[in-house]
């Protein structure tokens, strides 16, 4: 079974609140969370923030519920773009584990899907999507391994935004058929976080199938993280896990003849 991730927890300068949010996420069963920094170049004097190192935030990371391992925290940058010039992949982007883009126009959505070197494309949830999703850019993004993100916190906050969130999600699902979608919180407060199983169920409301909804909080998020790692390397990455061999019955095998030993191992 794959682990659950929430790839959007809004960064606040209030350190205590951020700590409380990550602790709650660990308690709810998320194994990985991403702290999200947002830049909007439309407002003047916006600079790309430096990601805070995780060790600065926590001396000892909280333990994930139901697991014995501590939670993993990564950094993520979201660039809100209304103009193609806003997205300039500089060295500053490389200090983040994940890069997301929030396109405001149809043209930008098209270029974001087809050419931008990003991991996540954000779908509007606080306003009505000003354009229709077209099949060709969405398919292009799926082919490139870029994921679409739907945040659920606006749907909790306000009933008008809930309408927009559901409407935009359904529009997207009609085109992408539930593929390459992730669901994340974009929470700013502890009480805006929800458990991973709740979100998998909420995915059904957004028009995902049961399997796709669960993948949207687990396996798809893992793909996003791996895609993020490929950005910083030349070609790609290979993820390997060391398997622990069971060490029992060693004494039995030592006594058995060599030919028999291989036989028992095959069974």
């Amino acid at each position, binding site marked *: 079974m794959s682990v659950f991730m929430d790839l959007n927890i809004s960064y606040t300068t209030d350190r205590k609140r951020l700590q409380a949010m990550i602790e709650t996420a660990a308690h*709810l*069963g998320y194994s990985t969370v991403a702290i999200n920094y947002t830049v909007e170049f439309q407002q003047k004097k916006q600079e790309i923030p430096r990601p805070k190192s995780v060790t600065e935030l926590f001396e000892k990371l909280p333990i994930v*519920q*139901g*697991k*014995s391992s501590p939670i993993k925290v990564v950094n993520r940058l979201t660039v809100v773009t209304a103009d193609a010039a806003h997205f300039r992949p500089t060295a500053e982007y490389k200090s983040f584990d994940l890069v997301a883009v929030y396109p405001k126009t149809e043209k930008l959505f098209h270029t974001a899907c087809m050419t931008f070197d990003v991991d996540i494309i954000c779908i509007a949830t606080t306003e009505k999507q000003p354009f229709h999703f077209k099949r060709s850019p969405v398919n292009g993004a799926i082919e490139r391994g870029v994921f679409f993100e739907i945040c*659920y916190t606006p*749907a*909790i*906050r306000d*009933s008008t935004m*809930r309408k927009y969130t559901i409407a935009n999600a359904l529009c997207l699902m009609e085109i992408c058929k539930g593929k390459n979608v992730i669901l994340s919180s974009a929470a700013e*407060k*502890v*009480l*805006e*976080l*929800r*458990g991973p*199983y*709740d*979100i998998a*169920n*909420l995915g*059904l*409301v957004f028009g995902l199938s049961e399997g796709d909804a669960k993948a949207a909080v687990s396996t798809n998020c893992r793909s996003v993280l791996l895609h993020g790692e490929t950005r910083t390397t030349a070609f790609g990455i290979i993820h390997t896990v060391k398997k622990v061999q069971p060490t029992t019955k060693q004494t039995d095998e030592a006594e058995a003849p060599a030919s028999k030993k291989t036989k028992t191992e095959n069974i």
Partner: protein
Amino acid sequence: MEEPATFERHVYKNASVYHYMKMSLILEDESKRLIAAEFKQLIVSGLRDLYGEIGAAIPFDLLTFDESTKTAILRVYNSGLVKLWSAITLIGSCQNELCAVRVTQVSPFLLALCGNSRETELD
């Protein structure tokens, strides 16, 4: 002589027409008290917000409500589970105050709610 232990497999198909949900309400102001009727009202209004009058008519029962821990057990027909659960997920305020309903367990068997394997400490 004792019979050797045999393996038997039971598969329940649609064993229960109900699903049971265990959940706890978390309020910003922790000292605030709530009675069972208010809790049920909160869920019904959540259903009405998301699914309208037809949603508010989904039959479900509040089996227990512990006022000190604000923990409740709900019983709902299988057909209404997804709607009820999603409405509960999207509840964000209770009596003009921020709140969250944490669903701890969902099961077709009431007995399964007596323990939670996720809370057990692993080493």
